[in-house]
């Protein structure tokens, strides 16, 4: 039986693709997938880069292609849009909670230690192992942690 492919199916598939650098959240939750539309027999998937130099971006696009092809979907097109620019404001509370569980302080006006919730933290470097993260230290529990920068 041929499975009916809908826009919802595409969203479901995209939801299963993890962020290559923060695998606890998906590329949809990260806000990289902006839109899925069906138009003239084709699914149009629009993505936007997080940071313009993010090396994970081309990897994410390859993952989308792989996910589509694994399901035998060939009538799709991948588009990139720059405006509106990606922002961490697109992350839901639920996603921020997932980041925290993974030991990464979620974007916020006030950085808190993801381990002990202490607000007594200090910035070690505004730049971390990836473009989107900064390095912090908790002065209460002494844990060093990543902060997902508000952007």
């Amino acid at each position, binding site marked *: 039986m041929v499975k009916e492919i809908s826009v919802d199916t595409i969203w479901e598939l995209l939801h299963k693709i993890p962020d290559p650098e923060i695998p606890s959240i998906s590329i949809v939750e990260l806000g990289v997938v902006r839109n899925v539309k069906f138009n003239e027999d084709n699914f149009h998937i629009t993505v936007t880069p997080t940071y313009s*130099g993010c090396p994970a971006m081309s990897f994410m696009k390859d993952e989308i292609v792989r996910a589509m092809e694994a399901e035998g979907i060939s009538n799709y097109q991948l588009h990139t849009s*720059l*405006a509106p620019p990606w922002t961490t404001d697109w992350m839901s509370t639920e996603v921020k909670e997932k980041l925290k569980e993974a030991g990464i302080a979620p974007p916020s006006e006030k950085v808190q230690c993801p381990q002990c919730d202490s607000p007594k933290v200090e910035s070690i470097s*505004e730049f971390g192992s990836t473009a989107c993260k900064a390095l912090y230290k908790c002065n209460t529990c002494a844990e060093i942690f990543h902060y997902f920068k508000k952007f």
Partner: protein
Amino acid sequence: MADSTLYKYVLSLGDDALVSAQRLAQWTYKAPFLEEDIALSNISLDLFGRANLYLEYAAELKGGNTTADHLAFKRNERQFTNLLICEHPNGNFADTNVRNLFLDTFHKLFLEKLVESKDKQLAAIAEKARKENSYHFRHSSSWVIRLGDGTKESNSKVQTALNNLWMFTGELFEMNKVDLEMSSQKIGVDREALKPQWKSIITDVLTEATLNIPEDVFMTSGGRDGIHTEHLGHLLSDMQYLQRAYPNAAW
């Protein structure tokens, strides 16, 4: 067909970003300490990203088989139109931070205007770059303040860097034919008009850093016309080596 003015404009902005990115990447693995190594490499990566956005757009404007990679790897020194300050060698840590401060402050003002460009693609690139540049500015300005207001040694090094690099800052505000035409069409930015604000931000940072603003000296220029310092050729020979030695190599 002659290249369009818009192509030349976008290319010059792409060249600024690309050459700055390549220069900054030369700090990778040799910055003073690990966090700083990561910071400078991250800033370099942002600039490569910015260069890619501009150059992809330039390639599209140029048409034919041109790609961003062609523009980056297959043009000679004289065809690069970046400003001279971008190709200036890294020098010591103070030299690099002063160069970054001059450029980040300029881009803070320039990109704020470019987001209003009538050209939608340029406006979108500017909006993206502007957010990233605010991190770069915080980084370079806080280092100049820390070094200036630090020890006698660090103060003297950063003051020397300021005095040496000052002669490259005039070119930031020069308006050539391309700039004038793009600015009159409200696609490009009036660079000259940014100078007072640039000077005022730099003055604030240097005052806090207990440093002296260099006296006005002879200002050098020529980058936009492809007349470069000897440093660009060496930078390009590193950057373009693979594509020159093994044309069209891919992986």
